[in-house]
């Protein structure tokens, strides 16, 4: 391979250029991230869409507890703040945005993420396979994001 690649006299320039282009492209994507307010909140556990909320009709704080799928059954939602024996994430949906307030996961990144209100990067909890996304679309039965 090195004989073949010897034709390129300065591979490091090409490879640095590739890295710089990718980095600048990523930076542009990050800076252009939407600042608008989203409409539909989706609570997804293990790829299954459990529930959607329409942000425009939410007036008070709503608390739900999501229990991920385990050996004993599928994922489900408990109303209110609960602390089941299994894994869980407590989610607060308020007119200002959505956040995870409590979780049994070790690092607690989903809690540190804080509140989200605009379409863009979702809240993820990898240990509990939870995703919370916000998007601009109307609530609908077909969902292109989940599988």
């Amino acid at each position: 391979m090195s004989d073949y690649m010897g034709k390129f006299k300065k591979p490091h320039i090409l490879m640095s250029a590739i890295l710089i282009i990718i980095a600048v492209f990523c930076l542009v994507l990050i800076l252009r991230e939407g600042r608008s307010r989203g409409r539909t909140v989706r609570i997804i556990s293990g790829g299954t869409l459990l529930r959607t909320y329409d942000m425009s009709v939410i007036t008070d704080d709503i608390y739900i507890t999501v229990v991920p799928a385990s050996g004993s059954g599928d994922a489900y939602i408990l109303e209110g703040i609960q602390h089941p024996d299994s894994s869980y994430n407590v989610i607060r949906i308020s007119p200002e945005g959505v956040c995870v307030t409590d979780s049994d996961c070790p690092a607690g990144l989903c809690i540190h993420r804080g509140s989200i209100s605009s379409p863009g990067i979702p809240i993820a909890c990898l240990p509990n396979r939870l995703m919370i996304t916000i998007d601009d679309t109307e609530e609908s039965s077909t969902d292109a994001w989940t599988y």
Partner: protein
Amino acid sequence: MPGPTDNKNRIRSITVLGLMSALSLGIYAFESLLPPLFFIPGIKPGLSNIITLYCMKRFGRREAGMVLLVRIIISGILFGNPVSVIYSLTGGFTALLTEILADALLHGKYLHITGAFGGLFHNAGQLICAFFIMGSAAVFSYTPYLVLAGIITGMFTGLASSFLLKTKIPDKP
């Protein structure tokens, strides 16, 4: 270091690679004690890549793969769970294969570029792994953050590794 041809070389290579695995595990354990840098899962310094790169350059590709595998399995038993082992395996070996290829393309020079590619592909591999485990394409909205973080942390570990390689460490006692 040549391949383990006779018994003495064999013993030495087992010892040295065991030491490298322990070092890598220690760095990994230290890193897991640090508070999360950012709210996105997967963004971390990846300091044990310093040892992977060092092993690849100093002992060989196969040896680096062995040290990486030992580190992932033991760290999985000590601090992790089966899911974190899957993430580590995907990320670690995607990174190592990329680094082997990048190192060949760069004729063994510019280790920071090799490291940056390794970091980039480590995160890309884990992202694809997350897509299958989380079952949601929404994880791909993290792509720009993870790719950028991979390049920066990979360049740092690559630089650290090239400084380590310049340091004279005696082969024989």
